[in-house]
């Protein structure tokens, strides 16, 4: 699904991502852990096209995508969420989700004048599908409310619904549990697991190791821009280098 080789991204003299490579198999649910400043989010930004890697290759289903614009990578089926959720606050929850649908004819200026019927029909389908995903994440009651009224956890759920509307093959989740109330956290974990059962591949950054252990079959550990180790959650948790990276020796 995703093959990453030797990705380097430096800011000035700091190599935030320093030669990282790994493989995400189709249908997998891979965790990416590591102390703050390890380069996890920078790596995500490289994968999603928000940042252009200095070197290295990223292949999505065998096709190189490194350095492509975010909208092109998105079109190839890779979607991401953000560590700090980024809803469109003044737009309704429903419109937040409707926006994310791919290949909307109505996003063309001219089609709103010359193919009015097609745009309207597509919008009705889009609305139904968006409501489905809003329902899936349990936000139906809030569909008509502006996204700014949502709590932190609800915003994470909104982002999940938003990317799912685009029917991605691979979803990058940046700390889906951070700052989420315990009750919503259960819901988020359960929804991610359900989507994975339906065949969606996930790569998720997470500090909540309990969540990582429950969800992920495979875990990557980053520290200081490099891939420290990878393996099953049990093997990674038992690795003394991982404990060392989290607890000391490495400047955060």
């Amino acid at each position, binding site marked *: 699904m995703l093959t990453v080789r030797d990705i380097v991204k430096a800011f000035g003299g700091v190599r935030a991502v320093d030669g990282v490579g790994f493989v995400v198999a189709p249908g997998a649910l891979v965790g990416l852990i590591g102390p703050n400043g390890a380069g996890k989010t920078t790596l995500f930004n490289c994968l999603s096209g928000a940042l252009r890697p200095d070197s290295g290759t990223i292949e999505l289903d065998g096709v190189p995508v490194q350095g492509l614009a975010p909208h092109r990578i998105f079109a190839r089926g890779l979607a991401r969420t953000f560590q700090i959720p980024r809803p469109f606050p003044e737009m309704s929850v429903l419109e937040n989700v409707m926006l994310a649908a791919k290949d909307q004819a*109505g996003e063309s200026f001219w089609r709103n004048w010359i193919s009015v019927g097609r745009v309207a029909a597509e919008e009705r389908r889009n609305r139904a599908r968006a409501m489905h995903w809003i329902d899936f994440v349990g936000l139906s009651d809030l569909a008509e409310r502006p996204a700014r009224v949502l709590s932190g956890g609800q915003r994470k759920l909104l982002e999940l619904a938003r990317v799912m509307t685009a029917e991605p093959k691979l979803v990058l989740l940046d700390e889906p549990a951070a700052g989420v109330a315990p009750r919503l956290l259960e819901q988020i974990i359960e929804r991610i697991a359900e989507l994975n059962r339906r065949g969606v591949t996930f790569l998720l950054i997470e500090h909540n190791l309990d969540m990582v252990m429950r969800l992920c079959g495979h875990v990557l550990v980053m520290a200081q821009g490099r891939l420290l180790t990878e393996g099953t959650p049990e093997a990674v948790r038992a690795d003394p280098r991982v404990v060392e990276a989290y607890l000391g020796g490495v400047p955060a």
Partner: protein
Amino acid sequence: MTDLAGLASYAAFFLAFAGIFAVIVLGLNLHWGFTGLFNVGVAGFVAIGAYVSAILTTPDHPGQLGGFALPVVVGWLGAAAAAGLAGLIVGAATLRLRHDYLAIATFGIAIVIQLVALNAQWLTGGPFGLHFVPKPFEASLGAGLPFNAAYLALVVGVVLLVHAGLERLVRSPWGRVLRAIREDEVAAESLGKRIFAFRLQAFVIGSAIMGLGGALYAHFIGYIAPEDFLPILTFQLWTMLIVGGAGNNRGAILGAVVVWAVWAISGGALRAIMPPDAQTRGAALQVVLIGILLAAMLILRPRGLLGEETAISRHAAAREPEG
């Protein structure tokens, strides 16, 4: 009876002006209200429209460029096209940059356009401006009330047309992307939207509408000069949008009428109150008053008289049947 006719004539004059402002503010609303583009050079795009339409339509006069004497409607379309082209050039150069650069660039360009109007005498008549800009229907109907009323009808027609067109656009998936870009362009980009393309489209269309507004102005007054397009005009137009409600097209129109009314009434009141030797300083007070109105609005009702609606998309309405 003549008093009544004079009053009616003034009312038509007042409303036609408000309508002309409304057209321009609708263009600004597409820029700022829907796309978050901080255009502080509105007067420049208005000036381009006014001059282009004037040059295209004015009959031959010695010492004045043009003499093309084209129909007024051609002038209007030319005005919109020229201002849209200016928007394309400015937008292509600046819309990839951060927001503040667009503000600096548009402000600078508006100043440059105003200075060109002031100095390129062969093109714009320089400080003397362009005269004899044709006023539609004036010859057949007569000056005063008949012309003002007919022009008001024309302006109202344009306002309704522009409003209807913009409403169709902003309530479409196209408009939804604009709002998303305004709210959070990083998130919009991560969801597959081509930010630059959408911003450029919105910028060009809004600029064209501003140019059309400039043309409406030129043909209403029949005479344009560089001092009609000073930065203070941009300030007034922004106040109209903020007061009416950015992100709401009806708000943009309402704001134009309300602020223009405040401007006209306060001007009349100051002229009546101020002693003759202080009249010019009284005019400055008018600007202060608009500034106070803007500040009060931002504090007391930051979303404007008519705020933005939460659900804008035509098919995201609350009781839209599904299927």
